[in-house]
């Protein structure tokens, strides 16, 4: 008789567990050395509370014996925002927390996606704009270095950049939404088509189609005075605060858009040549804490421990 486990979940046997523990120990070492205290929150919470954050929607729900709807958390950012609002209502910011915890997402069948996955990350609460973002990026790079990853890069963009650029052109609401949805779908052909239908002059249309495709070193941030220069000003001030070794890891990406709804400013993704998808990421969510009663700016990142493990194995095998 076979007793299956759900697709997207797995057992970890001792050899793999030993490797995962070494990675986690390296990450924890960096987090704690930099003053991030580890927290753990319930894997299962009231669905209303998790939804209140407006990020990834919880995928698995149950009724408890009182008819309340409970849900498995889809990330750690929402639970930590709740924790700050309820347990640290008056504590002097900045607050620094880290976690190594499982989160749960819906999967499409046969795609090798995990329903249950282990995340390690930090939340820096009460540290504003460029300084806080620079600290998070610095901790991120130190963590990856400590784990032994060699060739990773960090894509850095700004969730507010393209909306701000669109704002400079005084476009109707539905046109803006169409452009943003093409960008979210990573469809530059569709974006160009929608831009073409706006009736802008050729130069402005080229700008709106080209800017989200700009990515690379700091030269990406060199723009003549105007709407683009205004939009990248935030990224430039982050760059000014990064040490050279961290700055050298950064790929500025003016089209970077992360799926979760709560990002307000800088966003980042971690890339490694041995993986076809990002192995982690994060960003600023300056409005989220306010929904839980403490209006503090915040930034954080999470790394997929399993993906980091895959990238490290790929690196040992000699790249691709």
């Amino acid at each position, binding site marked *: 008789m076979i007793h299956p486990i759900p697709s997207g979940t797995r057992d970890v046997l001792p050899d793999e567990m030993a490797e995962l523990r070494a990675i986690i120990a390296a990450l924890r070492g960096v987090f704690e050395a930099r003053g991030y205290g580890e927290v753990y929150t319930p894997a299962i919470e009231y669905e209303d509370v998790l939804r209140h954050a407006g990020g990834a929607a919880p995928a698995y729900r149950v009724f408890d014996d009182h008819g309340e709807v409970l849900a498995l958390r889809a990330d750690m950012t929402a639970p930590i925002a709740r924790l700050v609002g309820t347990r640290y209502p008056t504590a002097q910011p900045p607050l620094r927390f880290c976690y190594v915890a499982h989160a749960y997402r819906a999967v499409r069948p046969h795609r090798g996606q995990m329903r249950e996955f282990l995340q390690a990350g930090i939340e820096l609460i009460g540290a504003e704009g460029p300084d806080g973002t620079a600290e998070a990026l610095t901790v991120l790079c130190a963590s990856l270095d400590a784990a032994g990853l060699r060739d990773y*890069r960090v894509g850095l963009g700004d969730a507010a950049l393209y909306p701000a650029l669109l704002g400079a052109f005084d476009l109707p609401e539905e046109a803006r939404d169409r452009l943003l949805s093409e960008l979210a779908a990573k*469809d530059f*052909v569709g974006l160009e088509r929608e831009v073409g239908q706006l009736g802008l002059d050729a130069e402005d249309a080229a700008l709106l189609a080209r800017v989200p495709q700009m*990515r690379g070193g700091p030269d990406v941030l060199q723009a003549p005075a105007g709407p683009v220069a205004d939009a990248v000003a935030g990224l430039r001030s982050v760059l000014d605060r990064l040490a050279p070794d961290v700055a050298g890891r950064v790929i500025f990406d003016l089209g970077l858009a992360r799926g979760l709804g709560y990002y307000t400013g800088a966003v980042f993704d971690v890339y490694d040549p041995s993986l076809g998808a990002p192995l982690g990421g994060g960003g600023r969510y300056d409005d989220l804490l306010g929904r839980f009663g403490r209006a503090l700016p915040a930034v954080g990142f999470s790394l997929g421990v399993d993906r980091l493990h895959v990238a490290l194995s790929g690196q040992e095998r000699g790249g691709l």
Partner: protein
Amino acid sequence: MNAFGLTIAVPRGALLGETLDALQRLGIDTAEVRANDRRLLFEDAGIVTMRPSDVPTYVEAGAADIGITGKDVLMEQSGRSVIELLDLGYGRCRMVLASVTGEPDPAAEALRHLGVVRVATKYPRIAARFFEATGRQAEIVEVKGSVELAPLTGLVEAIVDLTATGTTLRENNLVIREEIAVATARLIANPVAHKLRAGAIDEVVGRLRGA
């Protein structure tokens, strides 16, 4: 490996010839691919060949850095995390709703009298989205082989399929009732390669756009 250092997923079938022409214009030597239609992997040219519907799979996973496939494939596999970079313009086809020639249209008749139409297709997601978006109830029948057979045998009242010239439809006594979308060949990229190999990918896009 080619001069760009990129592994390129190339679709076999109707798009192959023009795709190889485009790559040749980039300076990639495609003679070996043209000469050999059984081999799949051409390391010197950095080309891997496959069915068009497999291209997004390889590109999403990073097994190929960039690839070329039809918009019809991308629409059907819209959940794939790939970046759509460029409309290459060739391989122009239409995704259409077709039914047996003559009036009244059997598909419209089915909806009028039964409230639901049976539709055979190789593109179940495009078909389902189309009927959903137009507020009509459809029973989607997924077939792997010749879709044109399905309405002739009474399996369904209509089909959703790709057509370039309409010849196959006409020869099977079918007529186009509605156009769903126009599909052309697209250049796509893996999202990580798009960042880590930005220079090479932008060079390819720029030169294909200029061509």
